[in-house]
C-alpha cells in the first residue's frame, strides 16, 4: 500500500520553517460548532437582514419612547385622526393620541410577551423532550402521555380559566400591569411547549443511535454530559424553528386575549390592542391599523428569517 508510507515529495525543509508552519497551523482557532454556525449564518443574507430588522425593532421600542416628543396617553380631540405628518409621523388615533408613541410603548409589551413566553415554552419543551427521548422506557411514555394531555386541552378556554383564577391574586402581588404580564407570559408559555417537546424527543431518539454517541459512551462520558454536549447541539435546529414560530404565535395570542377583554388593562396599548381598537377605522384612518399590523408582520417575519438562518447554520450536516 503506497499510501501507508507516502514518499516525501517536498524538498526537505529546515527545522525552523517546519516549526513555523506547525505553529501557524495550531494558532488558527479550532473549528467549533458556534464558529461554524456564525460563519454560515453570515452567508444567509435574509437571516442577517432579519437580525438587523429585529434588533432595529427592539431598539425602536426600547429607546424610542425616551426620545418621543408626544405623550402616548394624552387625549386631544382637536387632533383626532390626523394623517401622518411631521408632528405625528404615524398619524393620530381617534382620541388624538400620537400613534408613533403608542406603537413604541405597545411594542415593548408585545415584544416582551413574545420573547418571554417563547423562552418559557422552549425551556420546558426541551427539558421534557430531552428527558423523554434520552431516558426512554417508562419515563418516555409518562412524559409523552403528559404532552398528549396538554395537546388535547383546548387552549383558549383554559387561558380564560387560568386568567380568571389567578388574575386577582397576581394583580395584588405585582400590580395590574406586571401581574398580568407574568400571568400572560407564563400561561402562553406553559401552553405552547408541547410541540417543542415532541420535536426534541424525536431528534434525541434519532441521535441516540448515532456512532458519535456510542463513541462517547465507550469513552465513559457521563449520561448528562452526552445529553447536553453531544446530542442537544445537534437537535438545536428544530428547537430554534419552533422558537421563532412561537414568538409570532405568542404576540397573536396576546392580541386574542386583549380582544376578549382578558389581556392587559384596556388602556395598555399593546400591538394587538391597537389593532383591535383601530379595526373599525380601517377606512376612516387606515394608519391606526396599518402601523401596528405592519410591525407585528415585520417582527414575525424577521424572527422567522433569523430562525431559518439559525437552523441552516446550526445543522452540522449542511457544512458548506
Amino acid at each position: 500500500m503506497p499510501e501507508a508510507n507516502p514518499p516525501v515529495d517536498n524538498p526537505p525543509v529546515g527545522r525552523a520553517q517546519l516549526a513555523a508552519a506547525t505553529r501557524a497551523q495550531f494558532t488558527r482557532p479550532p473549528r467549533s460548532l458556534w464558529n461554524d454556525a456564525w460563519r454560515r449564518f453570515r452567508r444567509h443574507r435574509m437571516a442577517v437582514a432579519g437580525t438587523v430588522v429585529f434588533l432595529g425593532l427592539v431598539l425602536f421600542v426600547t429607546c424610542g419612547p425616551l426620545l418621543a416628543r408626544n405623550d402616548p396617553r394624552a387625549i386631544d380631540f382637536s387632533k383626532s385622526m390626523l394623517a401622518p405628518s411631521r408632528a405625528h409621523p404615524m398619524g393620530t388615533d381617534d382620541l388624538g393620541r400620537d400613534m408613533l408613541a403608542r406603537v413604541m410603548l405597545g411594542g415593548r409589551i408585545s415584544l416582551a410577551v413574545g420573547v418571554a413566553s417563547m423562552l418559557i415554552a422552549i425551556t420546558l419543551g426541551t427539558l421534557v423532550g430531552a428527558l423523554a427521548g434520552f431516558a426512554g422506557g417508562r419515563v418516555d411514555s409518562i412524559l409523552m402521555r403528559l404532552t398528549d394531555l396538554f395537546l388535547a386541552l383546548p387552549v383558549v378556554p383554559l387561558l380564560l380559566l387560568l386568567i380568571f383564577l389567578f388574575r386577582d391574586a397576581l394583580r395584588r402581588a405585582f400590580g395590574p400591569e406586571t401581574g398580568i404580564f407574568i400571568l400572560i407570559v407564563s400561561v402562553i408559555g406553559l401552553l405552547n411547549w408541547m410541540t417543542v417537546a415532541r420535536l426534541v424527543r424525536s431528534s434525541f431518539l434519532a441521535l441516540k443511535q448515532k456512532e458519535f454517541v456510542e463513541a462517547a459512551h465507550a469513552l465513559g462520558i457521563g449520561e448528562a454530559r452526552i445529553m447536553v454536549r453531544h446530542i442537544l447541539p445537534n437537535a438545536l435546529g428544530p428547537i430554534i424553528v419552533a422558537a421563532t414560530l412561537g414568538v409570532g404565535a405568542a404576540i397573536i395570542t396576546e392580541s386574542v386575549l386583549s380582544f376578549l377583554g382578558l389581556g392587559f388593562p384596556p388602556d395598555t396599548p399593546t400591538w394587538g390592542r391597537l389593532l383591535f381598537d383601530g379595526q373599525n377605522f380601517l377606512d376612516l384612518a387606515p394608519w391606526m391599523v396599518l402601523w401596528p399590523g405592519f410591525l407585528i408582520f415585520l417582527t414575525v417575519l424577521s424572527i422567522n428569517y433569523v430562525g431559518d438562518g439559525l437552523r441552516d447554520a446550526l445543522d452540522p450536516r449542511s457544512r458548506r
Partner: protein
Amino acid sequence: MIRCYPALDAGPFDPVWRVVRARWMVVRQEVALNHRLLWSWLAALLALSMVLAACGSAPPAQAPTTAPATTAPATTAPAPTTAAAATAAPAPTEAPAARPGRGAGDTLRLLYWQAPTILNNHLAFGTKDIEASRLILEPLAAVDPEGNFVPLLAEEIPTVANGGVAQDFTSITWKLRKDIKWSDGSDFTAADVVFTYQYCADSKTACTSVAAFRGIKSVEALDEYTVKITWEAPNSYPYQVFTSQRGAIIQRAQFEQCVGDAASTAADCQAANLAPIGTGPYKVTEFKPGDVVVYEINERYRDPERPFFKRVELKGGGDAPSAARAVLQAGEVDWAWNLQVEAAVLQQLASQGGQGNLVTYNTANVERLLINFTNPDPALGEERGQLSQPHPFLTDLKVRQALALAIDRKAIAEQLYGPAGYPTCVLLWYPPFAQSVADIFTDCDQDVAAANRLLDEAGWQPGPDGIRVKDGKRLSMLFQTSVNTLRQKTQELIKANWAAIGVETELKSVDGSVFFGSDPGNPDNIGHFFADIQMYTTGATEPDPTAHLCGWISSAASQKENEWRGTNNMRWQNAGYDALCDQLRNELDPDRRVAIARQMDALIVSDVAMIPLVARPRVAGASKDLKGYNPSGWDAELWDIANWYK
C-alpha cells in the same frame, strides 16, 4: 406551536371567533366597495342635510318618518336630534295592507351582541334576556313608543274612567281576554296572573323584576278572567305590575314547583327557565344559553294572521361594531340591537353600507358611572362588598363630588357618541322631567380646579407619585365596564380626567355576556360589583320613573344574601332618598309626582351616588326590506314582533 390560533375554531368561544372572521370578510368587501364611496358620501350629505333641516325647522314630533329610500340609506330613521321627546321618534310603520298572513315569511334573523342566558323574564338580568323572553312571555299590556298602553292579554286598559282603577288608586282590576291559550294548549286564566305575583312575592325566588311588585297587598282572581290587584297604599302608577318589560305572565302549571329557592336550583325549574311556555307569537325550539335562541311560531297565538315569520333566530355574542357591520353593510341579519359604536364609524357604515337603516328611538337610558359604597377589597373574602364594610374613600362626599366635577361629559357625548348621545347632568332626561337636551346639561361642566380644591379641602394631599393620599389611603380605583370600544374609550377619557386631579384609575373590561350575566357565581357581573366604579347604561323601563328610581333605595342593596340580585348594586344607603321613594309611591297628583321624581334625581346627583354621563336614545339597525317594526323605548324593542314583515 401556533395551536391556539386554529383551536379557536372550536369550543365555547366559537361565536366570538366567528364574529372576528365575519368582520374580516366585511373588511375585504369594503375594499371592493370603495368605488361607491363618492356616491355614499353624497347620500350621507343628503341625509345629514335632511336631519339638520328637520331639527332646525320642525318641532320634534314632526320629524320625517318616511323618506324616499332611494336617495339616502339613513333617512328612514327619524332625526336623532329630536332628543328628549319621549313622544317623538316614531318608527317607519307602513300601511299594513299588503301584509301577508301567518308564516308567509321564512326566517327573521336578530342579532344581539349580548347573548341571552335565560328566558324567564322574572329572573332575567339584562335587557338581552328580557328581549329574548318577550317573544314567548307577554305582559297584560305593552307600551308603545308614545307611552300609551296597548292591551295584549287584557281586553282593555283599566282606567279610573272605565272603573278599572279605583277612585282612591288603591286597586286596579284587569279584565283578561278569554280567547288566549298557552302554547301547550291550556287556557290562560287569572290563576296564571295571580301565580306570577306569588312567584315573585317570595323573596327567595330572587326575581330581578321585584321592583314592579313592590307595595302590593294582594293579587286575587275575582273570577276566571278578572284579576284585582290591591295596593297597600294608594298607588299613583297602578300600571307598574304586569305591563311592559317586566310584567311577563308565566304559566302556573309550569312554574308551580319553582317558587322560592327552587327557582334557580331545582333541575326542572332550570329547564323551565330556559324554555318557558308562553302566550306570545313564538315558542322556543332551541336555546343555547350565551349563544343562540331559535323560535318557531306558536300555533295557538291569538291573531290567526300573525306572525309573518315562520322562524326567528336570535343570535347572541360579538360586539356592537360587528353587529353594525352585519346589519348595515353585510346584510347578514335583519335586525341588530343597540349599535353602541363610535359616532364616526356608525355614520360611515350607515351611509356607505347600503344594506340597512339606522333606527333611533328614545328611551330613558343614561350611560352612568355607579359608585361602590362598600369595600370591594378581595382581602375581605366573604365580607367583600357587604354593607358592613364601607368603602375606604368613596364614602367621602367630597371625593365623589370631585370625581364628578373632573369628568368632561361634553367631550364624551360629542366626540364618542355623536348623534346617539347627549351630555347630561341628570338621570331623568325625558318629558315631563326635561323638555329638551338643553335642559339636561346645565351645571355639570368640567371644572378641574374646583375638583382639586374639594380634594384639598377634604385633606387629600398629593403623594410623591402625584396620587392623592390621606391617612395612608391612596385614591386609586378599579373601574370596570363591559367590552365595547366606545366604553373603553370613555374609560380612557375618564381616566385621563381623573389623573388631572390626582386620582389613579385602573381600567378593567369584562366581556358583555359575563358583565351583564345573571349567574350568582359570577364575580365579574354588575350585581357583585367587585370594583370601585362601574359604568353601564340603564334607565326607567316605563314612562313612569317610580320603579327605576325606587330600585336604588337602601333595602334593595345587592348583597350575598339576595344572591347579588338587588337592584341597588352600588349599595348606596340614604334615608332621605328612601323617604322620597315612599312619597313618590304614595303621591297621586301628577304634578307633585314629577316634582318628587326630580327631587330624587337631584339627590342622586348631589350625593353623587351615580354620575350621569350621556343620555342615550337607542340606535338599532334594520335591514332595508324589513317592515312593520315600531320599537318602543318604554317596552322591549321586540314588543310588536308579531307585526314585523318583509
